[in-house]
């Protein structure tokens, strides 16, 4: 199984606080790896550093063999490293279609064409409809995205990330605030993505994590304390201690 992305000795500190402490991790093609850990374990900071939202303090991020440490986010997206955010981040004033269309346009090209109508970029439009169909949002294409229900906004953000044609997709708590039915829907969708790409999931809903993950990485206080299959993690004493305190 080929490694898509890996980190070597990655550190991130904020002043004196070590948020990510010497993390070596590997993310493989067509695998779903979840990152779990108690609040403040450094999960979100870890993926923020990988995806170019925060600069690393030291260590390296490798995309295949390419060193991509501290590259700006838009260049990482071009390589196929896409993400969603813990707090929904979409273009609220634009329609659902336009949200996905702009992401497609920025991948396929045409952003510097100033004399043609944006509606005329045929390849971009076709791919946009394809993604909306895939996520079941095609019926809501013309609704302003700020009028969408919370669950659909989370789904739209996944659609925008997928429009970047990712090789690896980072999802930061995609089920947060979703109803059980919506959670089930998005969990199945996330699992389906691993037919083609690598997925990294930061998630608090343990039912989702345990049912769809191939591997799990457990962070505590910025360091990896355990790695393995869902079953192995459930039986791991260190993990129980991190979550529950001294047992």
């Amino acid at each position, binding site marked *: 199984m080929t490694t898509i992305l890996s980190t070597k000795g990655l550190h991130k500190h904020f002043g004196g606080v070590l948020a990510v402490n010497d993390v070596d991790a590997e993310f493989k093609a067509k695998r779903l790896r979840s990152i779990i850990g108690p609040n403040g374990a450094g999960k979100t900071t870890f993926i923020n550093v990988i995806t170019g939202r925060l600069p690393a303090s030291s260590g390296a991020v490798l995309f295949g063999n390419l060193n991509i440490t501290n590259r700006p986010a838009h260049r990482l997206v071009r390589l196929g490293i896409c993400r969603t955010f813990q707090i929904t*981040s979409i273009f*609220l004033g634009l329609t659902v279609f336009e949200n996905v269309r702009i*992401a497609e*346009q920025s991948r396929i090209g045409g*952003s510097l064409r100033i004399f043609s109508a944006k509606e005329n970029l045929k390849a971009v439009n076709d791919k946009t409809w394809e993604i909306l169909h895939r996520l079941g949002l095609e019926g809501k294409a013309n609704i302003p995205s700020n009028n969408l229900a919370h669950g659909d906004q989370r789904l739209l953000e996944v659609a925008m990330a997928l429009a970047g044609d990712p090789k690896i997709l980072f999802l930061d708590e995609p089920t947060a605030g979703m109803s059980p039915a919506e959670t089930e829907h998005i969990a199945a969708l996330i699992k389906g993505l691993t037919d083609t790409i690598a997925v990294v999931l930061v998630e608090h809903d343990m039912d989702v994590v345990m049912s769809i993950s191939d591997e799990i990485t457990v962070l505590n206080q910025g360091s990896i304390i355990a790695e393995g299959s869902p079953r192995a993690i459930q039986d791991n004493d260190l993990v129980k201690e991190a979550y529950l305190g001294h047992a």
Partner: protein
Amino acid sequence: MRVVALLILIACLALFPFVVTNRFYISLVNEMLIYGLLAMSLDVLLGYTGLLSFMHNAYLGIGAYVVGLFLIHISPSSLWLAILAGVVATSLIALPVGWVQVRTGGLAFALLTLAFGMMFYTIVWKWYDLTGGDDGLMGVPHPDIQLGGIVLGNSGNPTTMYLLSLFIVIVCFLLTWRIIHSPFGAVLEAIRENEERASFVGINVRRYKLYGWMYACMLGGISGGLFILYRGYIGPTTMSAFAGAGVLMMVLVGGMGSLWGPIVGAGIFIFIQDYISTMTEHWELFVGLVVILLVLFMPRGFVGLGDYLTRFRKE
């Protein structure tokens, strides 16, 4: 339908100086057109890219001074060359400023525009030998307006100058409308809506902010060229922070994010300014009052009123 309305409006504006032959009113509407162009270019920044510039008038000023100096010192008869020089010089000055500007966003961006604007204002004020300091740049010659070897008239004639302004403002409006609705315009809107998300769908946010900035400043430079041709004079007060706030008010009064709104806003603003200043010299007080009322009761400006009427008719 909208095209027909636009054509009728253009026809009315083109016939205006032949119906109302009073030179004073022709000049007044000419000034509305010129400031309308400036306000529209600020709308590209504010309404479409989400960047607030307090002193966009600086680029009208730079364009005007360069065109004026070109006509005085280099060639008193080359109108098109002078305008070209004005646009090129404005762009050359706007480029390094923009390079610094786009590294920031939000409040920091707005404060930087104020800092650069004050700097340009001071340069114009103090560099007496070149700009005439607080006396302003006087005695700017009025070249003939030539097109393909045919003399259409002299820029010193209010009617001819008015028609030239109208033509250039229409061309700039159509061009900007096209650009705003292009894939490029969609990128600017994405940046306005959410800068972080824009970079996480693969947009080089700084670069596109710089493109938007350059286009807005270039249009500002064109409005400056028209300004000096129409007035034959410019002083540093045109580049003051006070005048900059006026341009911002034009955009807000008209309604940002529509292109045509700010042009209407410029018309309303200049009309109020002119009308009230015939009654009292404290006209700023009343302009301020009108803006306060508009912000409270018509937060989306004149454009919002249009939307309201359309909805009312449908119901």
